[in-house]
């Protein structure tokens, strides 16, 4: 189906790349005009070249569909199956990412080629493995959040507004617009403990941080957030199911 609607995919990926591209050009221009952010030009360029890819790979858009299936009673068809209700959503997310990767990766590579003088990526395979691990954890955490928000439909008719505000917070605090490293120093303690940064900014940090030892705390916090969201998702889902009363359920 994605091949059938290929222009949908292309337009979607173009819209994902445009925001960091504008940000990249503006930051580089500002630095050329004498701006002095707390990170190097190389850090900023590498970060903003990679950010669209990481954002896409750790994203999830299950909440809306889950809420709809609860509201309309479509959940019944999944509840009677001998597997997890969320299996289809997981499969959908993974398959969609593979399809999106095909269109997004060439654009990101093109950006990396254009700005190759300022793009610095590690050569150590260990760093790339760590990057892959943090991406998987970030994706799992986002999916857990999505299930929590979607499951609110067991109690509320409309969860679109909650989802919109959650996405707004995630957009800014994940580092999808600008690196968390350039945000005001006073925000530091909050930025270190809030969850969204561990979905986008932290995986990129695993490639950019000169000393891998400094990532240990981040890895621990990310693991804690993943566990917390999975437990919360399980809890909300089980509680919600007890309230569920679809036709035939």
């Amino acid at each position, binding site marked *: 189906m994605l091949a059938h609607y290929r222009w949908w995919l292309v337009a979607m990926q*173009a819209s994902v790349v445009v*925001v960091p591209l504008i940000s990249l050009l*503006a930051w580089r*221009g500002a630095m050329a005009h004498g701006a*002095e*952010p707390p990170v190097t030009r190389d850090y900023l360029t590498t970060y903003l070249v990679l950010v669209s890819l990481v954002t896409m790979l750790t994203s999830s858009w299950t909440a809306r569909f889950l809420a709809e299936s609860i509201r309309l009673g479509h959940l019944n068809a999944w509840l009677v199956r001998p597997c997890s209700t969320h299996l289809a959503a997981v499969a959908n997310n993974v398959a969609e990412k593979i399809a999106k990767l095909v269109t997004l990766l060439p654009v990101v590579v093109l950006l990396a080629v254009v700005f190759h003088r300022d793009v610095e990526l590690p050569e150590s395979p260990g760093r790339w493995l760590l990057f892959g691990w943090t991406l998987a954890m970030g994706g799992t955490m986002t999916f857990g959040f999505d299930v929590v928000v979607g499951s609110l439909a067991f109690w509320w008719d409309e969860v679109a507004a909650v989802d*919109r505000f959650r996405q707004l917070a995630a957009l800014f605090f994940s580092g999808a617009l*600008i690196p968390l490293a350039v945000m005001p120093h006073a925000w530091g303690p909050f930025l270190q403990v809030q969850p969204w940064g561990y979905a986008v900014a932290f995986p990129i940090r695993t490639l950019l941080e000169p000393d891998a030892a400094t990532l240990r705390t981040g890895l621990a916090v990310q693991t804690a957030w993943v566990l917390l969201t999975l437990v919360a998702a399980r809890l909300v889902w089980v509680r919600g199911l007890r309230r569920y009363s679809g036709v035939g359920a």
Partner: protein
Amino acid sequence: MNRRTVRVTVVVWLKLFRQAVARDLQFRSQTWLHLLAGLGELIVGILPVLILTGFAGADPTVRQAAVLAVGVFAFTTGLMDCFVSPGLRRFDSAIRKGELDLALVRPLPTFFYAVLRWIQPAELGRCVSGVAIVVVAAFTFDLGLGPKALVALTVWALAGTVAYGAFWADLALLAFWVRSIEPVNDLAAAWRGAGQYPRPFFPRTFQVVLVSFAPAALVGSFPAEQLTDPTAALVLAPVVVLASCALTTLIWSRGLVRYDSASS
């Protein structure tokens, strides 16, 4: 378009606006949420610009230009998201499902009925925020604005809104040729974000693009520049509007020829 059609179109538009306001007043909680979300989106858009200009060193004009651009941007995008983009976001679906037929059979200009009949008055809250930002910035930076500067700002902000709306429509009208192009609306919304940043930050070629065929700067940084330095000839504003509308009209008429309706 004769005089009677113009009159009928205006009357219908006013009724549509009244209906949209009545709807928002009826679903008040939803309207409040939209207002809050619009405000949240505005803040999320502004913060990166302010953080960036915070590092811009000793040059106070950069921060001044950025704050003014953000204010103007809020105003123009509020207008666009109230009157134009809701219809454009539905256009792809209207083509795919054949709903455009309903617009074609009406005794009104089809483009008007197909695109401009969807109105979201709650988005006008952003216009108020934008005006407030510009007024506060003008007092804070002690700009001492004259009537010439205010006229230049208003004219270019409105011309920019029309020009970018037309550019967005050009993209949305690709739905006549390409199957399911809905995310092009997200692309147009993302691209206009470039209008919030001071123009000199961008490379020269990119600056030219931003004031010509993808005129994101015309909805933010360019009108803001006219407030502090009204140098661009005002006579150019109608030229920009006419050129962008002419291109959209051309694409519309070509696309309409290709349209296979659901009932024909």
